[in-house]
């Protein structure tokens, strides 16, 4: 298995390296494959590996003790994940699960440090990537801690509920996210919570409000 240097060249990490330099760093990478649904990176474990998605899609997520899932990121081809653990040497801050068959390139912390020593300008790319992650995660923190998003979602559901004859307006999760001033990851989680609370249930393309009173209570709860 040969690491494709043209793939590395397309990643934000190594786009500045010449093809000769890429040839010299390619030896530090290894290929990993995972099948659909495989949780190949576990939260809290010590792996110290930075991964790049070569093909397929990976879901980066955290799971609470009660089993509640929060998707932090969807990594597509060219994207990296587990950057934090690969740089600070700490436990993986989140788990990673393949959404279909995936091919990944991995690089260990010690080898990443060799590249950074030999090609210091790569560090500037790393700073930019980590800064954009911090910016995104800060907006997620804001949504999760300061906004009463679930109340807004409850309100949207009550507002747009039809009588089931198919004449009512249809909403995608992206529509609901735009209406509630959040991202679709938070909408997905809010809907799951409403389902667990017994306010709604899913029936394929339908969201059925099974308990209007619970939904109203959640809508009216102070933020």
């Amino acid at each position, binding site marked *: 298995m040969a690491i494709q240097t043209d793939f590395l060249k397309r990643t934000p990490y190594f786009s500045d390296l010449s093809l000769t330099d890429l040839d010299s760093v390619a030896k530090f990478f290894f290929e990993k494959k995972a099948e*659909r649904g495989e949780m190949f990176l576990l939260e809290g474990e010590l792996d110290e590996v930075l991964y790049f998605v070569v*093909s*397929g*899609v990976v879901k980066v997520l955290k799971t609470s003790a009660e089993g509640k899932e929060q998707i932090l990121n*969807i990594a*597509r*081809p060219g994207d990296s994940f587990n950057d934090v653990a690969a740089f600070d040497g700490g436990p993986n801050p989140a788990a990673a699960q393949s*959404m*279909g*068959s995936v091919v990944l390139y991995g690089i260990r912390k010690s080898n990443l440090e060799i590249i950074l020593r030999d090609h210091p300008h790569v560090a500037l790319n790393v700073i930019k990537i980590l800064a954009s992650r911090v910016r995104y995660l800060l907006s997620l923190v804001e949504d999760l801690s300061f906004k009463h998003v679930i109340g807004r979602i409850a309100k949207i*559901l009550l507002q*747009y*509920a*039809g*009588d*089931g004859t*198919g004449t*009512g307006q*249809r*909403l*995608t*999760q*992206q*529509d609901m996210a735009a209406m509630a001033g959040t991202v*679709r990851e938070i909408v997905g989680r809010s809907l799951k919570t409403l389902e667990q609370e017994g306010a709604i249930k*899913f029936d*394929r*393309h*339908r*969201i*059925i*409000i*099974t308990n*209007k009173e619970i939904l109203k209570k959640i809508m009216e709860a102070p933020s």
Partner: protein
Amino acid sequence: MNELPVIDPKKCNGCGLCVSVCQCGALVLIDNVVTLIATKECDWCIDCEAVCLTGALSFPFEIVIEES
């Protein structure tokens, strides 16, 4: 009624990520454009919608109040 997801072929860039995450084999690329071939199999998991960067796929939900 077999509700269908909405596909906008003009927005599809043919990347195939939606096909790679589809768990029920309902999606294929035909002439580099995503196409739904097995509507009955689609269980509205919306993974394909989540991975699509161009918004070519959308899965609208009908919101209904159940009479008790």
